[in-house]
């Protein structure tokens, strides 16, 4: 099946209110070897991704390390140049935009990184960090700029007095707030959030997750939320895309992905998460996949998941399954043998909790 057909079908449910569309996005990194640094191979980090994001929604992207989710986020905002494919943001094709052309686009699409320790300049005060994007875009003017920074700090739950301190004086959660304030400075339309809470302790994670939700409501932001934590992604996302080895395996609403997953990989992922309730011990289907994720430099032929899949047949090695609705389902799934399975349902009914 041609890629174009697949992409129209898989994105068929979206219409004119989309803010971002990527088609056939590819990002390969060369593997160099020898003294002359010959290219001996390619790491196919993102290898043909079609995605559309609606204005105001949160699209979650989940997958394990090495699946390409971080590269996807960075390529979409052109922190790295795509190898092939098309990126349309807010009705502009930005695929070939150069640095200068990207400048106004960068006001509208911002990124928040995973590690709040590494992403803030340790020699700058918090005020300088938050003011920096305003200065770069020539929007920081005297008292007004100062007031804007104070307002941003308050918006993310910090006090203006925090502005005079340095990043090392803050805890992980507060640093992530600073990163969010910086991303908000230019009133973006969209934010790419790359593992924004995974470095934080659970009690603090919830603070930052709630802050993001509140900001989304207040400013009508669109989020691309990249994370490996399936529980957090469920909580924040309207729709979810599941990635494996540079490809999207399944994409659907939260209800479709968590309630009626059809791809064996999605099912295995969901079944693998330990659920924080000892009452559910032994009452859930546990799919334990064999082996490790293959190298993205040399992905398996056909379906990339087939080497770990319990359903794999001959066709899986020969033909790559397109990402289309299948088996009577209403969301796109890239599996020849797609079928609903509900790994979160309990195998036998759980007794009602004792209310004493």
């Amino acid at each position, binding site marked *: 099946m041609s890629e174009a057909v697949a992409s129209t079908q898989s994105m068929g449910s979206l219409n004119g209110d989309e803010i971002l569309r990527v088609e056939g996005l590819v990002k390969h990194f060369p593997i160099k070897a020898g003294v002359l640094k010959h290219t001996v191979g390619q790491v196919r980090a993102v290898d043909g991704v079609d995605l559309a994001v609606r204005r105001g929604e949160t699209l979650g992207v989940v997958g*394990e*390390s090495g699946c390409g989710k971080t590269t996807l986020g960075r390529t979409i905002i052109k922190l790295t140049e795509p190898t092939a494919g098309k990126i349309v943001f807010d009705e502009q094709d930005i695929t070939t935009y150069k640095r200068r052309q990207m400048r106004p686009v960068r006001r509208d699409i911002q990124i928040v990184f995973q590690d709040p320790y590494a992403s803030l300049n340790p020699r700058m005060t918090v005020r300088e960090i938050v003011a920096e994007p305003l200065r770069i875009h020539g929007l920081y003017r005297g008292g007004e700029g100062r007031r804007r920074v104070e307002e941003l700090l308050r918006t993310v739950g910090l006090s203006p007095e925090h502005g005079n301190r340095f990043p090392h004086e803050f*805890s992980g*959660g*507060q640093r992530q707030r600073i990163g969010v304030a910086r991303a908000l400075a230019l009133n973006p339309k969209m934010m790419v959030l790359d593992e924004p809470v995974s470095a934080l*302790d*659970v*009690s*603090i*994670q*919830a*603070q930052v*997750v*709630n802050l993001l*939700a509140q900001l989304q409501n207040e400013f009508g932001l669109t989020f691309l939320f990249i994370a*490996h*934590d*399936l*529980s*957090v992604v*469920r*909580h924040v996302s309207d729709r979810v895309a599941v990635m494996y080895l540079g490809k999207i395996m399944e994409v659907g609403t*939260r209800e479709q992905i*968590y*309630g009626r997953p059809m791809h064996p990989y999605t099912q*295995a*992922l*969901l*079944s*693998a*998460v*330990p*659920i*924080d*309730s*000892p*009452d*559910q*011990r032994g009452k*859930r289907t*546990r799919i*334990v*996949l*064999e082996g*490790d*994720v293959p190298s993205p430099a040399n992905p398996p032929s056909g379906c990339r998941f087939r080497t*770990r899949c319990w359903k794999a047949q001959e066709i899986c090695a020969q033909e790559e399954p397109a990402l289309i609705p299948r088996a009577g389902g209403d969301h796109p799934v890239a599996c020849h043998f797609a079928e609903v399975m*509900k790994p*979160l*349902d*309990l195998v036998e*009914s*759980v007794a009602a*909790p*004792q*209310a*004493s």
Partner: protein
Amino acid sequence: MPEPVLSIRDLTVEFGTEDGVVRAVTGVSYDLYPGEVLGIVGESGSGKSVSMLSVLGLIPQPPGRIVEGTANFEGEDLLKMPKGKLRDVRGGKVSMIFQDPMTSLNPVLTIGDQISEAIKAHRPGTNDNAANSRTVELLEMVGVPFAERRVQQYPHEFSGGMRQRAMIAMAIANDPTILVADEPTTALDVTIQAQIVEVLKAAQRETHAATVLITHDLGLIAELADRVVVMYAGRVVELADVFTIFNAPRHPYTVGLMKSLARLDADQEWLEPIPGQPPSLITPPPGCAFHPRCAQSQGREICRTELPELRPSSDGGDHLSACHFADELTVTHVRVAAGAGG
């Protein structure tokens, strides 16, 4: 109740830092019983790892310093044991699995040599052949495919999940009485985590070792632990069997932790975070260290002035809580497990 295999009493550990003395662990007491899995849960800086590592002589001194306490293991106090003898205990009767197998495996020795060495070190007189076949057997047990060939490989030739299996094989090589697993799955992807959890279960079944599972992951605790120690700011704040901890906790921190978690199996409108930040361990808050973030304290003076003792709660002697108002907390405060979709 059988005799505990390990009894820690009044353990206090400090670290000297540039900014002052950090009280990583203060007055910690708990018992480990034969064959059980004791979960120790807490966030970063709670002292969950230090409490165990200091007992095993695994914290650098200085900057670390064991201020007081005892750790009774088979009639002896580990904290007073000569270094050489303690080294024999470690890797022998007490063995460990760490978060990052890459830093705990020797990169210049083959996997097989490392495991064989561990066997021979604790069983003098074992010949090379016997050690080697035992190594292969152990690796097969933890699910390393082609074990016979892979014993000749080096750690960097193993994937993260396979390295963790090799670590587990080494840890159970000498039939330990106690197995300490410190964040054993934290660095791994979720599908690999699931594999390692199965291996851990099998290893525990095989050895019947009393297992200490140190983790921040409540899901892992729910899945594996029999009893749970909850730590906050260097102290034990609650101790009970795993069902009680999850279904009827009696410490506001435990309740807060449960409420702040996003759920995989249900939709929630908002998460309920614990407000504020974890306290400084150099100048901890007076009274109960949790009081500035506590939903239960409601500004009551005693929480600021008096350290709550870890004592039996009203629902029985085995459930300990260090909260002045433990009895105010009822089942209704908790997100009781409602099952899928509920």
